[in-house]
């Protein structure tokens, strides 16, 4: 029986930050990840990480921008915690060795980002997430924290509301194992792969959210999915940092159309505002083959080659365009899950003792209805640390671990065997997944309306029914990559159902959730979090209040 005091599922920035924090707090901690840590999705984050480092900046200003950016759905006490902690947490990353781009005087450089009143996004060229990830991996290696890499976690094991551990399949052998933990931290990242053409890595399939949901834990704010304004044809992202450096958006008429939608902030308005603007322009026929043009030429080739080197490469490799010479075709792309497993500012789940979460899998909520660029990496760092500390405290207190019962392992083994035994002419996971992704994009996209949402929900349910007949085409045990794919598709279906249901129920527009039939924000009825728990026939939706401390809701314009 594998046993550790703290198990951390997912070895991205949040997971590894939690691991280091838990280790330094004296706990016996292990990481479990379905990929090698440096392959985690964090490496894709380009733009930067926010903190009020500047002498003329303040955590209060950062907090306000975040609250406003969240369209007043963010919990302000948690936002305050995050913004207060940001400067020290980022400097701590730098002390651990994270390299940052610098100002002339040697201090960490910062640039403007969408929705921020001050240039407070610290960055490392256009590979910010990448360097943070590698720095944390190196700190994990230094501490010799055990890593169960390429172990695919399939289920959380709870007993009477108390965490006992997880079951995970070792990809090398195909065998499931029980892993006992007194505290479990979910840091499994996003689920934007419910959509086709997402910015997410192929394996961002919301496994942690799915497993928590199936274990009876509440998910929150699932309808809020952020569309990033500048994705390439296949979903790969072009960082917001481009716009921070001076890039502009043009429609087919060569017009800087953001003047119509956000006359003050222009291209640096909040992401949901910009995405909707682009979607409108495209829908009204002012796109070029369904794309908007991102023109970086005003930035100048020198600066592009220093600060946006990766952007240039991606643009050339994927779009066949050199941004020093021509604009890049982009469009709004599903990108970030504001929603996730409900938890507090220590990552603690209200429904399970010993269960914590951090990073994109979590919903505290600090991002509310829309996340500001640069706050995701910050979220991962701050709440990764806090949840690691809290998990360590929870694990080292109390008695011996109860362990994971053999029955849980046997159940998993039986599930695998059943999948392999099913008629090979049954459903293929790839077909179900692709149909799901297409329908979600069409029905539960940027612009939503009741008819489409209801149809979407029905279609998801029909797919779930077909999923009951999915088979594993290949029954080998060693590195059977199809097995996690089948299980991932199951997660996607559950989560898509919550997203569609939440979007259908929420009859207002707020942040990234835009209802054509309910175009206004309705604080009186809807300033509340959606909460989803698993019922017999699918998700059941309830609501929970938003914590307002300093900033009563205002009209949100840029």
């Amino acid at each position, binding site marked *: 029986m594998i046993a550790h005091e703290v198990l951390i599922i997912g070895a991205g920035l949040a997971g590894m930050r939690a691991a280091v924090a838990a280790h330094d707090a004296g706990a016996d901690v292990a990481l479990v990840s379905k990929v090698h840590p440096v392959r985690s999705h964090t490496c894709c984050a380009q733009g930067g990480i926010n903190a009020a480092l500047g002498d003329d900046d303040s955590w209060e200003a950062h907090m306000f921008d975040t609250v406003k950016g969240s369209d007043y759905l963010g919990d302000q006490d948690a936002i305050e915690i995050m913004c207060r902690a940001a*400067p020290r947490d980022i400097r701590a990353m730098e002390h651990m*060795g994270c*390299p940052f781009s610098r100002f002339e005087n040697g201090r960490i450089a910062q640039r403007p980002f969408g929705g921020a009143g001050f240039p407070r996004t610290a960055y490392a060229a256009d590979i910010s997430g990448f360097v943070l990830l590698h720095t944390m991996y190196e700190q994990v290696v230094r501490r010799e924290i055990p890593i169960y890499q390429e172990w695919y976690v399939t289920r959380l094991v709870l007993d009477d509301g108390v965490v006992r551990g997880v079951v995970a399949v070792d990809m090398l052998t195909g065998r499931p194992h029980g892993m006992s933990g007194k505290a479990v931290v979910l840091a499994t990242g996003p689920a934007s792969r419910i959509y086709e053409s997402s910015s997410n890595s192929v394996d961002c399939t919301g496994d942690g959210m799915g497993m928590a949901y199936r274990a009876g834990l509440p998910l929150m704010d699932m309808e809020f999915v952020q569309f990033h304004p500048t994705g390439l044809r296949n979903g*790969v992202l072009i960082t917001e940092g481009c716009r921070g450096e001076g890039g502009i958006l043009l429609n087919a008429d060569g017009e800087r159309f953001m003047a119509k939608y956000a006359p003050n902030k222009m291209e640096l308005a909040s992401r949901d505002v910009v995405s909707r603007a682009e979607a409108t322009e495209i829908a009204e026929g002012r796109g070029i083959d369904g794309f908007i043009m991102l023109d970086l030429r005003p930035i100048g080739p020198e600066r592009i080659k220093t600060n946006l080197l990766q952007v240039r490469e991606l643009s050339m490799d994927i779009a066949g365009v050199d941004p020093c010479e021509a604009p890049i075709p982009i469009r709004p792309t599903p990108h970030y899950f504001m929603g996730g497993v409900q938890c507090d500012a220590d990552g603690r789940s209200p429904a399970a003792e010993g269960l914590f979460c951090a990073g994109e899998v979590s919903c505290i909520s600090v991002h509310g209805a829309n996340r500001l660029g640069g706050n995701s990496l910050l979220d991962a760092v701050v709440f990764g640390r806090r949840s690691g500390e809290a998990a360590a405290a929870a694990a080292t207190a109390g008695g011996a671990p109860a362990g994971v019962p053999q029955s849980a392992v046997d159940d998993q083994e039986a599930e695998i065997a059943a999948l392999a035994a099913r008629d090979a002419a049954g459903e293929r996971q790839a077909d179900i997944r692709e149909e799901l992704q297409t329908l979600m994009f069409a029905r539960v996209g940027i612009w939503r309306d009741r008819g489409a949402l209801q149809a979407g929900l029905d279609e998801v349910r029909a797919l779930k029914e077909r999923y009951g007949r999915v088979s594993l*085409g*290949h029954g080998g045990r060693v590195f059977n990559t199809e097995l996690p794919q089948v299980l991932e598709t199951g997660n996607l279906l559950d989560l898509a159902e919550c997203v569609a249901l939440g979007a259908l129920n929420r009859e207002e527009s707020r942040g990234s959730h835009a209802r054509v039939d309910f175009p206004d924000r309705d604080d009186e009825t809807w300033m509340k979090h959606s909460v989803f728990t698993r019922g017999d026939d699918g998700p059941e939706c309830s609501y929970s209040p938003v914590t307002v401390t300093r900033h009563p809701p205002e009209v949100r314009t840029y």
Partner: protein
Amino acid sequence: MVTATLAVRRFDPEQGEESRWQRYDVELPDGTTVLEALMFVQEHVDGSLAFRRSCRHGVCGSCGMRVNGCARLACNTQLAAVVEEAERRAAHAHHTVGADAPDDGRPSVRIEPLGNMPVIKDLVTDMTVFWEKLRRVQPWLQPLDESPSPDAERRMTPAQYAVLAEGLMCVECGACYSDCIAVEAAPEFVGPTALVKAYRYAYDVRDDQTHRRLYDLSDEHGMWECTRCYTCTQRCPKHLRVRELIGRLAELSQIEGLSSDAAVKRAKAFVEGIEETGRVDERTLPLATGGPQGALGDLPAAARAAASGKMKLGKREAVDDVETVRRVVARAKESGGTTP
């Protein structure tokens, strides 16, 4: 559309000890990458095909594999480009070895796992040794002051960041390591990836263990075992000039006074020869490099060479205007480059 025949080297440990080729014919849209082609096969044709992938745009390093004999990232390699390579190879098939995947008149894009590593299944390799070698260079910041003020970052100038920039971008995909000829010849060689990581830390102003890092990598299987074949630079899918970075480590080690390695002695023999005649006297290299013991090992070859007249015993002629060369070398020695 791009039409291609993929010839994938399959291996299933549960099905026996031998690997085999399996072909898949695909027709996919323009712009399709090799990874997208493999994903299409795995999702819609043959779910048993195993390979690693994640970000599909060249930052996670998962999808390292050999395509047409050269290690790369599948996700930033265009299928059309490798089809062209296969057609070119087929056109002069009598020059190149068939690698036991006969083209049969249908040039195929060959896809194989990374080299210099054991294969787990299909295109999935065991990277344990690779990760261990990275660990060997202690890839974490080691400042003397481990507890600076929490309210101030350590300073670094833009110029100092720029020095790191190239080394930072390594995604640890293993492409350079896979095709490194020195690793193949000397499996304990630490390898190019670890040396890039060492460069990244040796050149980080905030790190205080430069000397020790370089000292550790001046051992038998460290930086001097690199054979300067430039395959790493050629392969790097992130366009790092890997060999050049290793060379920078070597240079820095000289500034740090770490000059006892045989390779340094060999290089100094070049300088001595150049100072004397303008050219290296390659006859001095065995003794200068390997010392008496080394030269002893070369004795049979040297004797044969002398006997056959190959040794060309006798003083070497100097180049014209050798005085200028001597002044240049003397100046270099003075300013502390090549420690005397």
